[in-house]
């Protein structure tokens, strides 16, 4: 009896790992915690992309938060995987990391493979109606506070660059744990503005009645909200204009999805084809619309070409851009 049990135990130990290796799954890693735009984008994709991949795998979303997604980006850059069974979405501002922080080798956008960017819609700076900062002029001349999470996030990078480029007088408060905390501090009147907010967030509920939208932030004006000044239309010298445009350029590859550097060419082609197919999938488009997601997809190859362009900018412009976001 005892021998039988030991034998059974042995068999159990040897066969059970099969459970682990058997499942065919595509994992979408998110560099932020649950909730928020990146998580929303990943979960939207997870519900639709499976059928477009060979074997129609299960698609699961996993959150790997840390350091404004740099943690996941670094993990992915160091990943030896070649099978493309895992992809990731990390901050779009990381695509400019070699410009903003050239000493930092944690992530190099040229070494990973970009699969798609989910939107290039503009983002905005806004204030609460009760803040008394209703116009662009007031935004640039009054003394007030802008809320931001970490210094690597667009919530800091955009207002910091605007402040230096246009000589604004506001202060940036950092250390908020997330956009929710920033918004609540705004409601309390602790801070008066926030920058880098997507259009979907602005159109929720009565937000458009509660907020003054001050600036449209992008590399070219989209005009989705009528009458909102475009940041690059403001008077500034050409060098600053080019540098600020470079800072804003990460917005044109927003919510990007990446694959590990060693991903095989065949698998890369499969993944990119699946994203291309999604662009015309009406159910996917309708679902994105229902969830308020501003879907304007850019193919992976185009994203890589755009990033190459950003990183090949005039060194003087890059240096000015770096100075703007300090």
């Amino acid at each position, binding site marked *: 009896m*005892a021998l039988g*049990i030991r034998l*059974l*135990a042995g068999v*159990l*130990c040897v*066969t*059970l*790992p099969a*459970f*682990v*290796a058997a*499942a065919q*799954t595509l*994992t979408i890693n998110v560099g932020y*915690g*649950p*909730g928020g735009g990146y*998580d929303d984008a990943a979960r939207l994709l997870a*519900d639709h992309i499976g059928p477009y991949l060979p074997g129609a795998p*299960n698609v*699961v*979303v*996993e959150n*790997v*938060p*840390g*350091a404004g997604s*740099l*943690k996941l980006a*670094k*993990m992915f850059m160091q990943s030896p995987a070649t099978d493309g*069974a*895992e992809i990731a979405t990390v901050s779009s501002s990381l695509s400019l990391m070699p410009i903003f922080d050239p000493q930092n080798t*944690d992530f190099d956008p040229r070494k990973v493979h970009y699969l798609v960017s989910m939107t290039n819609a503009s983002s905005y700076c806004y204030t609460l109606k009760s803040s008394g900062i209703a116009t662009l002029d007031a935004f640039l001349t009054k003394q007030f*506070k802008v809320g931001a999470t*970490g*210094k690597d996030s667009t919530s800091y990078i955009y207002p910091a660059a605007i402040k230096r480029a246009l000589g604004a007088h506001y*202060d940036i*408060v*950092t*250390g908020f*744990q*997330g956009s*929710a*905390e920033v*918004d*609540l*501090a705004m*409601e*309390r009147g*602790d*801070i008066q503005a926030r920058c880098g907010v997507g259009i979907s967030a602005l159109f*929720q*509920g*009565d*937000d458009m009645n509660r907020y003054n939208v001050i600036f449209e932030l992008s590399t070219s004006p989209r005009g989705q909200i009528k009458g909102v000044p475009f940041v690059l239309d403001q008077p500034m010298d050409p060098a600053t204009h080019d540098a600020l445009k470079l800072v804003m350029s990460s917005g044109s590859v927003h919510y990007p999805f990446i694959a590990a550097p060693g991903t095989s060419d065949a698998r890369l082609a499969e993944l990119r084809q699946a994203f291309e197919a999604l662009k015309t999938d009406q159910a996917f488009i309708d679902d994105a619309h*229902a*969830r*308020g997601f501003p879907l304007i997809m850019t193919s992976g190859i185009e994203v890589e070409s755009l990033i190459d362009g950003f990183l090949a900018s005039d060194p003087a412009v890059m240096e000015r851009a770096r100075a703007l976001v300090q």
Partner: protein
Amino acid sequence: MGALLIAIGDLAEPMRLALLIVGVVFGLIIGVIPGLGGLFGLTILIPLTYTLDPIAAFALLLGMASVTTTSDTIPAVLIGVPGTVGAAATVLDGHALAKQGKAARALGAAYSASLIGGLFGALLLALALPVMRPLVLFLNFGDLFAITAFGLTLVAMLSGNDPLKGLIAALIGALVAFGGLDPYEGAARWTFGEVYLWDGVPTAIVFLGLFAVPELADLLRRGQIRATGASEELGGMRKGISETLQNLPLVLRSGGIGALLGAVPGVGVTVIEWIAYADAARRPGKGPAFGQGNIRGVIAPESANNAKEGGSLLPTLAFGIPGSASMALLLGAFTLHGLVPGPDLLRDDAPFVISLILTIALANVIGAGLCLMLTQPLARLASVPAPALVPVALSLVGIGAYLTTRDPRDFVVLLVFSALGLAMKRYGWSRPAFTLGLVLGPNLERFFFLSWQISGWSWLAQPLVIGLLGLSMILLTQQIRSFRRERPGKGAPTMGRGDAVLGFSMAAVAVGILAACLRLPVAAAIFPEVVAGLTLAAAALLLPRLWRSAALPLIGEARNVRSDLWFLTAGVGGLALLILSLGHVAGPSAFILASALWLRSPQLWRALLAALLTAALSWALFDALSGLTWPLPWVVTAWESLRHP
């Protein structure tokens, strides 16, 4: 009134009620398993709600989320393993009661406190609906700083009869928690170049190491949960419920703490339950000291962590601003179902909002009812032989730890904090005080920098800040006076050489951190420097006692330390190796079987059954239901490399 009747009618539809019950049962299961919590449950359940109507969807989701903090009490009380991070405080007195043969009493009190706390949270949410906005906006970062500082003065309440050691433990807890990228400058503090540590040490694993592992080691040594000679108390469950009712003011106060702090984004359940526990410890009432089986130490955190759920819905409903990661997922679910949280939702769809409140209330009633029904059978676990129980519980702890980031370094953290927990337990260093420092220290720093950036020093003139900081000063002065008068700790027994080693190690950590601070920007270094300096000052005061301890070897100390080391290496280390080698399904099962053989368990078939059930549970939850990606087991990697060299 009309909206209330409509909401009752809506929720009373059989299908929705059935989904609510399914959610509650799922939440109870998740709460029992260490390392899992409501967030895990929501990620699994939200995709299942796509085709449901909003009321049914939220009956399922909120039903689950409302009760994980009810059932997490079961492992906390019975085996000293917190089911979720929200039950760590319950371990202290709950498990102490179980050892005394009063498991049913502790569980009865915990469930009834959870029920009343949960209902109180729902009631506060309902009452707050008309005045939600001013209520949520009431506390700013200055007030939160003052609340946190006040919470830290409660360390003395959690330090047992040795306040100096408790103080050092709390300071070391804060120093550990300062690790990671600092909130102001983004500088890396004692991350040892590891990306893994950028967000700090994972709190969930620290809790498992500090509380679960030492209690399991102790349980294995004792032979069974109930101490020898203690018999199971008759009518314990009823007694526990009646004690909750007798302590109704405490239940409501703790519920108030839970609901109010739950409404503040950035204040998690870990902070809430410890503040509630420490607040209760200020008035221990009749019965044993806190930490030795005082029923108020079970009632307070359980009431607070269930009331939190109602509170945390407030900012989500009032502004569409989620107060926690769980609420962020729920907010996503609102959007999926075409609902936009905010004032409009309350005005335009009041019956739906009321149905959410009713769901929380009903889930608490059903959850507590189901748990109460299971109390007597579960209490019998107290007499199950430890060699059968401990390997299964330790396996779940191992899975829970590995689940945190699915990185082998999860086990390194578990081993380090298990060693610390074992040493602290053995040598009388307060683990709750360490935990309070761990959860409150970083908040103190963050709230300070936010307040300072927002309003310079003027926030110090806010009425609540003046009141709370003044109260903290009065409490501190009182404590210092009473320490000087009573000299607590003076008569504390000399604990042996290990105590000296632990004390000197903590001082060495403080010195190391001071040295590391020299390379940091001022803003990133200032808080850790102050805390490390205070640690060294307190350690200097303790030095004479540590010196005596080092000079006086205690009989049996070496044997006890060997026993702890054996549990740490063969138990936790062995389990880690098996999970890494064979995976999260086969590894724990192999560990249970190997333990049964090693410990010569008389009924091997039970061990086999336990191994199979653990494997099935691990596979069902972490592969079939959630589809998590796990690193390939080492045997599979080795096999692959043999096949494709």
